[in-house]
């Protein structure tokens, strides 16, 4: 473990920010280009994780444990969000027999 934590000694903070930006953007692209509601949901999880990584990197940078506590709360929130979201998807599937978001266009003008 000591050896492993030596690995980050020297990685610039900017590279962590860059990695988080790229993963977040991949999540955004996933929401934009997919039609399956479950895959859209997974992309949202990717975005949440990108933000978690950024918070932990900043927490280490500033030597402040509050950032890691925030990540803990985000994880609790994500668990609740996934449970509710998947319940909604199951309900939608029961009503329209598909999870295609293009069928759900009643609010579209």
């Amino acid at each position: 473990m000591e050896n492993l934590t030596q690995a980050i000694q020297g990685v610039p903070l900017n590279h962590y920010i860059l990695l988080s930006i790229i993963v977040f953007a991949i999540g955004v692209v996933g929401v934009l280009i997919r039609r399956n509601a479950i895959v859209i949901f997974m992309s949202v999880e990717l975005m949440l994780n990108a933000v978690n990584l950024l918070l932990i990197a900043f927490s280490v940078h500033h030597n402040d444990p509050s950032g890691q506590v925030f990540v803990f709360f985000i994880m609790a929130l994500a668990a609740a969000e996934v449970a509710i979201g998947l319940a909604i998807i199951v309900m939608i599937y029961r009503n329209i027999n598909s999870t295609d978001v293009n069928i759900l266009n009643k609010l579209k003008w």
Partner: protein
Amino acid sequence: MSISLFYFVAFLTIFFALLVIFSKNPVHSVLYLIVTFFTFTLHYIMLNAQFLAIVNFIVYMGAIMVLFLFVLMLLNLNEGSIGSKSNLLKMVGVIAGMCLIITLVGSLRALDTSDPLVLQTQDLGLVKNLGKVLFSKFLLPFEISSILLLSAMIGAVLLAKKDIKQV
């Protein structure tokens, strides 16, 4: 061990994240997402956030992924049962994502070049240290999050159960 370990894991993260959104079969997407979360766990270990690495491992790779796989099996969505968006819309989506990256990276470059990340105290992310903060400074949010989880459980049961027959 060297710095290159970080870049290798970062490359794996981006690679599997791309596979998540571009694979046709939703089951494959879930499996790639599990690998992506595992690479995030590796990042947390390298940052010496051991508590969060374990929580990430248990909550994301254990609970959330099982939930996703379970719902996919329940709904029996096969490959091709849902069509994909037209190529034009896909291109527009990818270009929009690129624009987001360019905007954020541009604002990042306005900053000075950053110092290397240095772990100042070794026990920053250990359970002992985080527990002290969590149960002193963040006690109220911690208790409120338990109410959140309870309400989420009740809501999920209410939403997912079949309607009671109308009399």
